[in-house]
């Protein structure tokens, strides 16, 4: 591998799309992935993330402008050469009977093996090392059709690692994983990019995760130019807010999460402190109230007794409950009663 420090993947007024007849999906894209950078490409479904990913990894030709891998322009290099520049993990599901993790990862050595694809000792060592690095030690002889999605995805990452490319591009690598597996794979990728000085770009629509973990974020939405920067700058410049603005959903710059709007919220007072009252507030927000500190007609008190939660309406105790679930249920009933009464 060439010295990755001097290399970067960059685009030069790139326009991407599926054909030249229709107007390009996105144009004037000027981005850069440096060695050791972990970048998340964020955008809603249908924003053109996959198209950009496919163009950057060489599956689609640029409609205009160009993609550079270091000194090489993507169109000018052969498949064999490109295989040593960028490796991919795609959304294509790999389900092959009787293929072991070792054999799968070893396919990543393809650009370096000879005519019959026979592995040298050096290749075997690299494959075993990569399997360990992604946390699949001991799985080498396990058949991939008997593994979970998360494990299989790690094996695909190991395949990309042994390909020894300065850049790794992943299309929605966590899309069909459950939350723990999702977090695990994202942390793994981040660690690999920093430790092994690989430039890693992945697309995702999981904004909250990307905010916490990415070195840089590229924002892509239909009909807008690509925005890029470190997560915090993008939050402060309101870019997130603009990109994800839709009816009923708002990005909250304070918490870095999405808020789900109800049209009109009934204000409700929360009395009490500590973790329990925080979660009561969240629960109340979720079901459509607006928790406030000032005094209003409806009040919830959180105390340290066994029946922690109590509802008060105009200073009058309406009931005490052991769980937030019971509280919400009762609150719904009471509120409806009061509304009918009014």
């Amino acid at each position, binding site marked *: 591998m060439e010295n990755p420090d001097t290399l970067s993947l960059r685009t030069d007024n790139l326009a991407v799309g599926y054909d030249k007849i229709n107007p390009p999906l996105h144009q004037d894209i000027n981005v850069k992935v440096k060695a050791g950078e972990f970048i998340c490409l964020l955008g809603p479904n249908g924003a053109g993330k996959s198209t950009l990913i496919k163009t950057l990894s060489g599956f689609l030709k640029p409609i205009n402008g160009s993609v550079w891998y270091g000194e090489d322009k993507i169109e000018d290099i052969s498949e*064999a050469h490109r295989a040593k520049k960028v490796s991919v993990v*795609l959304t*294509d599901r*790999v389900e*092959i009977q009787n293929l072991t993790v070792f054999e799968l990862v070893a*396919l*990543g050595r*393809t650009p370096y093996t000879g005519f019959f694809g026979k592995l040298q000792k050096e290749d075997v060592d690299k494959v075993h090392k990569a399997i360990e690095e992604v946390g699949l030690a001991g799985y080498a002889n396990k058949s991939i*059709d008997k593994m979970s999605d998360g494990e299989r995805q790690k094996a695909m990452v190991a395949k990309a690692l042994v390909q020894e490319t300065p850049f790794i591009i992943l299309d929605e690598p966590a899309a069909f994983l459950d939350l723990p597996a999702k977090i695990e794979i994202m942390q793994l990728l981040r660690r690999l990019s920093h430790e092994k000085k690989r430039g890693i770009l992945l697309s995702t629509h999981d904004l909250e995760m990307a905010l916490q973990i990415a070195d840089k974020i590229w924002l892509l939405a239909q009909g807008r130019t690509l925005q890029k920067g470190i997560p915090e700058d993008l939050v402060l410049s309101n870019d997130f807010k603009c990109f994800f603005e839709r009816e009923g959903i708002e990005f909250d710059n304070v918490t870095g999460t999405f808020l789900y709007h109800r049209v009109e919220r009934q204000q409700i007072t929360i009395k009490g402190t500590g973790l329990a009252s925080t979660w009561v507030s969240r629960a109340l927000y979720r079901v459509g109230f607006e928790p406030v500190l000032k005094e209003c007609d409806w009040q919830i008190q959180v105390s340290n007794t066994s029946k922690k939660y109590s509802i008060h309406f105009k200073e009058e105790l309406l009931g005490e409950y052991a769980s937030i679930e019971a509280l919400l249920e009762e609150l719904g009933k009471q509120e409806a009663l009061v509304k009918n009464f009014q």
Partner: protein
Amino acid sequence: MQKGETKQRKRSAFILLGISLFVLFVLNISLGSVYIPFQAVVKWMFGFQISNEIWENILMKSRLPQAVTALLAGAGLAAGGLQMQTLFRNPLAGPSILGISSGAGLGVAIVVLLFGAIQGISLAGLGWFGSLTITAAAFLGAIWVLFMVLFLARKLKNNAMLLIVGIMVGYASSAIVGLLQFLSTKEDIQSFVVWGLGSFNNLTWDRHTIFIPMVVIGLVGSLFLIKPLNVLLLGENYAANLGLNIKRSRLSILVITGLLTATITAFCGPVAFLGLAVPHLSKGIFKTADHSVLIPAVMLFGGALALLCHLIARMPGFDGTLPINAVTSLIGAPIVVSVILKRRSLTQ
């Protein structure tokens, strides 16, 4: 540790296959409707003169060329089938999936049936010349379809479309064949049907001078495709990212499989089942997806199974030889079903 175990397992499976292949080959030469003492057969095999000239003739001119035909046809069809299953990522693919066998059938039908209808000549009655014409027609038909498929392969990006085109070519060919049959005489239809049943006993040494080199080229060519086939397991996108020139690899695979299928179908008729089943059986035994194991394995297995089927087709007691298609399907279908059932119970 476990790796050593599987390696050992693969080695013993290869040895077992090799031995079965050899035994079946010898049995094919020793057994037949004319009784020849085993001692004489062995003596003959080691190059000694045997006293009985009739025996020598039977061995040399009938049994040996037939055994060689079965061996090569089985190996070739199995190798082709494996390649199609990997290329199309479809367990139901076989060497005939591209429509090549149908093309061969169409070629034969045109010659046999049309000649009969227009010229009033029955090729069936023409003996040696007739059967060579049939072979040539089958080969031309197969090659024509192969070229069409190759041409389309350059245009179509998607393998699934290629698969559909192959199947459509098959339907179209059958339709034309049906039409020709409708217009033909009984004798001509008979000789077409006989060709369609498949047989390993039509090859004299003269014809082997064409058959052997063509099939051997195909088999050796298959060995050269081990790396691209392995990479294609991951699908075309991953394969392209691993540096594989997809178009060139696909073309090579189609040419090799096409050559094997066209040659074998032309000389032996459309032999069913072997090409589809042997890859599955081999994957079941060797428990691997690695083509550096599977390609040699399917060749040995295909050769052995074809020899076994041919042996059964010529079992003493039958009057003449049974159609090879009937035997391959009857023997093979239950084997495949049992393998699949066994594999299911293992995975669940």
